């Protein structure tokens, strides 16, 4: 039994929306700074990289795979762009484009090892996580690249469009576009359908002549490309390409996907759910920051939210069979 993105809407996503709504209500009532939409939209810049990568990650996890190397790819892309710009004198847009390309290559390597060499995704990407991070460290000699013009920070850091208190940062718009694209791909296209079939039952999918290997290659490469895009924003936000950038990003991305209702073992998936997961974790963090809840307690709460979400997933997944 395969569920597409919209079939879930009645139960799962509604519950998530409600949770998001309750979080907003709680912090909105207790904190006037939270009520100011300017602050909330401004803060959304911090979720963009996570949210972007969470979109292809949802599809990968839907196939029963996983990509742990995303944080390392972000760092490597940033470093390569930085080197191209600073050492090779490439114009900045071209250097960034090159970085995205490197991301694609990294993703393709992941996909190749998974599909052709038949190494489980967890092992593959655990290994490439170290390799890509090491490359980023090695190429930069562990020294952040700092020669970027300040204007790129203005673009990703300050500039927005909108009116009054509703200022939408550039990169948040990009995230919204990517989420919309992801929703269409997962629920309306053959790529989405195949992803779910692979996750539901690999053998059955093969018998049904789903091109499993090509799908893996495609998904991991896409994930790498999106990491490259995210790295542009990451680099722009700090005006620095850091070899230690985005450390632990993979875990936050996966947490958002799991909260969003995608089972870690594959077979279902919802990009909208993932996006709600990003919103929930993001607003929760923001609200707790504003309330002045100390960081050490915040991580406990966030861990609990993930456990709760995973428990809910199992419950929702099991329920139809009992009927």
């Amino acid at each position, binding site marked *: 039994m395969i569920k597409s993105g919209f079939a879930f809407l009645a139960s799962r996503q509604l519950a998530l929306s409600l949770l998001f709504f309750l979080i907003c209500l709680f912090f909105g009532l207790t904190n006037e700074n939270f009520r100011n939409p300017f602050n909330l939209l401004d803060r959304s810049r911090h979720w963009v990289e996570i949210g972007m990568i969470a979109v292809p990650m949802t599809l990968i996890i839907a196939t029963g795979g996983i990509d742990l190397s995303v944080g390392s790819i972000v760092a490597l892309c940033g470093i390569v762009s930085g080197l191209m710009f600073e050492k090779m004198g490439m114009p900045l847009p071209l250097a960034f484009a090159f970085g995205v390309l490197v991301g694609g290559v990294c993703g393709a390597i992941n996909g190749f090892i998974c599909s052709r060499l038949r190494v489980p995704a967890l092992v593959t990407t655990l290994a490439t996580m170290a390799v890509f991070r090491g490359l980023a460290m090695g190429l930069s000699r562990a020294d952040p690249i700092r020669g970027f013009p300040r204007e790129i920070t203005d673009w990703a*850091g300050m500039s927005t469009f909108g009116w009054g208190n509703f200022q939408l940062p550039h990169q948040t718009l990009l995230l919204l576009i990517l989420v919309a694209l992801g929703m269409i791909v997962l629920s309306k296209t053959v790529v989405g359908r195949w992803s779910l079939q692979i996750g539901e039952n690999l053998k059955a999918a093969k018998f049904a002549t789903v091109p499993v290997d090509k799908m893996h290659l495609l998904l991991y490469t896409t994930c790498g490309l999106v990491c490259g895009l995210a790295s542009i924003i990451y680099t722009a936000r700090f005006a620095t390409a850091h070899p230690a950038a985005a450390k632990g990003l993979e875990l936050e991305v996966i947490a958002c996907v799991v909260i969003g209702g995608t089972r870690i073992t594959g077979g279902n998936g919802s990009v909208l759910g993932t996006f709600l997961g990003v919103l929930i974790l993001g607003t929760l963090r923001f609200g707790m*920051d504003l309330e002045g809840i100390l960081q050490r307690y915040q991580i406990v709460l966030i861990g609990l939210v993930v456990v709760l979400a995973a428990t809910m997933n199992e419950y929702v997944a099991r329920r139809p069979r009992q009927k």
Partner: protein
Amino acid sequence: MKNYIAKFILNILVAWLFFLPGCSSEKNEESTEKTFTIGIMPKLVGVDFFNSVEKGALEAGKELGVKVIYDGPVTNDVTRQVAMIETWIARKFDAICVAPNDPDAIAPVLQKAKQRGIIVIAYDADTTPEVRDYFVNQATYDAIARSLVDIMAEGIGPKGKYLFLTGSLTASNQNIWMDHMEKYRAEKYPEMINLSETPKASEEDQALALQTTIDILKAYPQMEGLYGMTSVALPGAAEAIRKTNAQDKVFLTGLSTPNAMRPFVKVGIVEEFVLWDPGDLGYLTIQAACAVLQKTVTETATSFTAGRLGEIQISNNEFLLGDPVTFNAENIDNYNF
């Protein structure tokens, strides 16, 4: 049908969210007697060093009658620091004091804070000078470098071979110290040998420092001296030396807190090490922030009185805490941090 109901409810929720901000009445609270709110952020919470910064900062806050908020990320992560400072800006703090994990990555957000009229002070590690108002310098780089190199030269002799164990490879403080140490060493002890151009990294993680040191001991059997360059790297290295019984072969010194080093100093694994008093550092940072807010320190000031610390020098927009302390078996029990 169910789908339509769900969509309908969702739409109402979203609409309500956008409506919500409009309902809030903007209150203009301008009380006549304003208490300053000063945020002070460590590189990470939960290590001895920054725990004493917190103590000193809260002490100064109590003395001065200002609200001091101490919080920071649970790992040495600059992106978390940036996110938290964004919130502090939104919460309209009067001054933000921060020990940046990366001098450049933190710069944009500090600039934003400065543009909003918030006093920005870097302490412990500096950022780009344009984006902060002041830097609280715990001890000049030269003074620290000289103390450490002299201790090492005495320990392993003027022809000894040594290595650096640092925190993260991008930590600006450690890198500048090591630069100064290498320069001073080249002048005064030209025959001492650094076995590895790049220092070994331990990422502010004591378990990793222990493992890395054990690896170093295997990889560099000719090593005679080791510097632990952070408050976490040094005890980790000392533990490794205790475990491998290498105290007769390797002379260990560096920067750390007396509490972390007390057991190792008592049994002679480490004879001497260096640090400033982080309690004083936190105390001075809040004193300085408050003085700037109250405008008792202006652009041209060259010194000010910082409570129990007395007269503090100011030059080039830097507050100078003074000389570092060298700890050994005799004086270590006088300190508790």
